[in-house]
């Protein structure tokens, strides 16, 4: 699939997080951004369909809803 190039302006802290995620996930920085975009779109579509995004900690028997803007 054809790809387009863009410049991404990040703070040092944001770039640090991007570097860290790329290392942990064994991905390029482009790969991390691509995954983040896919995930954001998936969450947005499901929230728009009326679903909720919930984190669950089974060990602590705790659930919390994430509100995404």
């Amino acid at each position: 699939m054809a790809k387009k190039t863009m410049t991404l302006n990040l703070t040092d802290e944001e770039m640090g997080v991007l570097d860290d995620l790329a290392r942990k996930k064994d991905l390029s920085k482009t790969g991390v951004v691509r995954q983040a975009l896919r995930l954001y779109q998936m969450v947005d579509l499901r929230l728009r369909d009326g679903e909720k995004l919930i984190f669950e900690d089974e060990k602590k028997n705790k659930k919390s809803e994430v509100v995404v803007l």
Partner: protein
Amino acid sequence: MNIEPIQIVRRSDGILVNAQLLSNLKATDLLMVERQWESSRQSLHQRLLGSSIDRRRWPQSLHWDWKSKAQLLGQLAIGGYGIVESSEWQAVCLVDCVSYHSRLAGQLGKPLVYLDFIEIAPWNWNIPELGQNGTYGACGMILFDRVVERSIDEGFRGRVGLHALPQAEAFYQDKCGMTPLGKDASKQDLMYFERF
């Protein structure tokens, strides 16, 4: 949509037949798949109902409906692949590139391509008890190989995961070289497989 020439095996004589591997499927493609498969699926269901074959041996995807999966293709995370020969859909699959992560030791938490659904056309199913030999072979393997390629293209180094229907477990373990990582209570107790 991308189209690549491939060959599939005509089981009646073992001849390789030219076909097309389609990538980046759209929702309309899955609607077409279901339109083409629905009557064969229903006819097979009727033949199975009239037979003495134990229900546990019936094809386990008999109730699937690709129409209901069509809306998934509007998401960046979801990809679809299919095989077409003479304008007939012979096999189709859907993958998810963000929702699952590796469970393999040494790869834990790393991204993978999750093979969410894969099915061959009802006329390609082998059901010896009904005297049905599938028309074309190799379709499942070709799609699986394409999913591994997608994982490599994504930078996921070939990591692929899936939950297998019981009838397909041997295929994934023996033919695809995947590792069974236990039954998953969150997925109807289906066996989870992964490859790297």
